[in-house]
């Protein structure tokens, strides 16, 4: 199991996560920030549990994020 967390408020809308992990990320047309698909928002931390197969792409997205607001943990 993999847990992905996104501090959405700090997103600057660079689009890297969408390019690198398209199955899990989309750009919101409402506010131009990235949205973590299927995630639940708890006090600004958007979190979702996904299959191990999604780890690599999302890990790449986390590394590319210019504001370091994506966390990917294998549990």
């Amino acid at each position, binding site marked *: 199991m993999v847990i992905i967390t996104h501090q959405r408020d700090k997103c*600057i809308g660079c*689009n890297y996560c969408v390019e690198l992990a398209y199955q899990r990320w989309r750009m919101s*047309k409402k506010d*131009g920030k990235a949205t973590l698909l299927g995630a639940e928002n708890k006090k600004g931390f958007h979190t979702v549990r996904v299959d191990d197969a999604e780890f690599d792409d999302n890990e790449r997205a986390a590394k590319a994020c*210019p*504001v370091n607001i994506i966390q990917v943990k294998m549990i």
Partner: protein
Amino acid sequence: MRSSVELMAPAGGFDSLQAAIDNGADSVYFGVDQLNMRARATMNFTLGDLEEIAERCQKAGVKTYLTLNTIVYDHDLSIIKTVINRVKESGIDAVIASDQAVIGYAKSQGVDVHISTQLNVTNVETVRFYSLFANVMVLSRELSLRQVKDICDGIKKDNIRGPNGDLVRIEVFGHGALCMAVSGKCYLSLHTSNSSANRGACVQNCRRKYKVIDLEDGHELELDNEYIMSPKDLCTIDFLDQLVDTGISVLKIEGRGRAPEYVATTIKCYREALDSIADGTYSEEKVSDWMARLETVYNRGFWGGYFLGQELGEWTDASGSKATQKKVYLGKGMHYYSKAGIAQFKIEAQQLRKGDKILITGPTTGVVEAEITTMRVDDHEADVATRGSEVTFPLDSIIRSSDKLYKVVPSEEVEN
């Protein structure tokens, strides 16, 4: 006499906005959330603040411009429309834009457009092109005075008019940070940190120290000037008369990321300078006074930029500010006894002494500077107010619980 040149101030928050209004700005520019060139700044306004900004500024007769000048992607298009619609509703005077999507939509909605420095306007034909959309354009920061004058003259000669029917008004940067690259064309931050300067997320690689390494023998060269990519800040106050003579209409001060006291001091100095040019009292003596005051707030050392024909930049020898004064946080506002004219603060750090120069900043208060001549702690006359104490002293301006109290000290004292 009030100068006919418009003085445009940066506003990173309500405190800076108020400081700009109080110190004589004719207009202010600011960003909301994203899609402005200071996306990383935590102090950007939100869309909900637009009404209050417009209202406060309209009362003071100050124009308001919203920056919407990053690169724009498809996923940004709907938010751009939202922002421009809000600009229109709230009575903000114009948007500062670079992307054609923004320029086009703003024009279609009847919202005034200013051309951003991100578009690097460097010749009169470009002015003619954008005159189809914009009444005001900022010129590239890399032009000389002669080039600025040629463009201003060309506008008059060719009768280049904007959508409002008036001659296009030319704006230049008069003070503040300079980019090591031509504005809008630097990719260092993107390449090293995936963080695009042109989306407002510059990590400022140019402000760091670098070594040059010879890859063949591994020798490392440390250069005398360690900050080889970090330009000093632009300052034009010592030749402002020549700059005004070129025919510019707007003088823009850079610094949305800087503190409110920077806005207060810089705007006050340039206000005095512009007005003294207008009434013929601009003098060397005044210039040295302004320079000394400008040096008290954030700066990387000053030079005249490219206006005077210099081909290469001047690089700073400091990582951060060379300001001659620093502010030290003391505490927060508690109460203002308006009948007696007494301000009360809670000291949370350091201590306040009689004779200290103080600085108060806040979203409604703006910037207030004063000197402590007398004060009371726990209802007794005192010379020192220590951490944890509540202090009162007479003050002409109203203070609020959202205000912060600082003492202003010479920079050396802070470093030692």
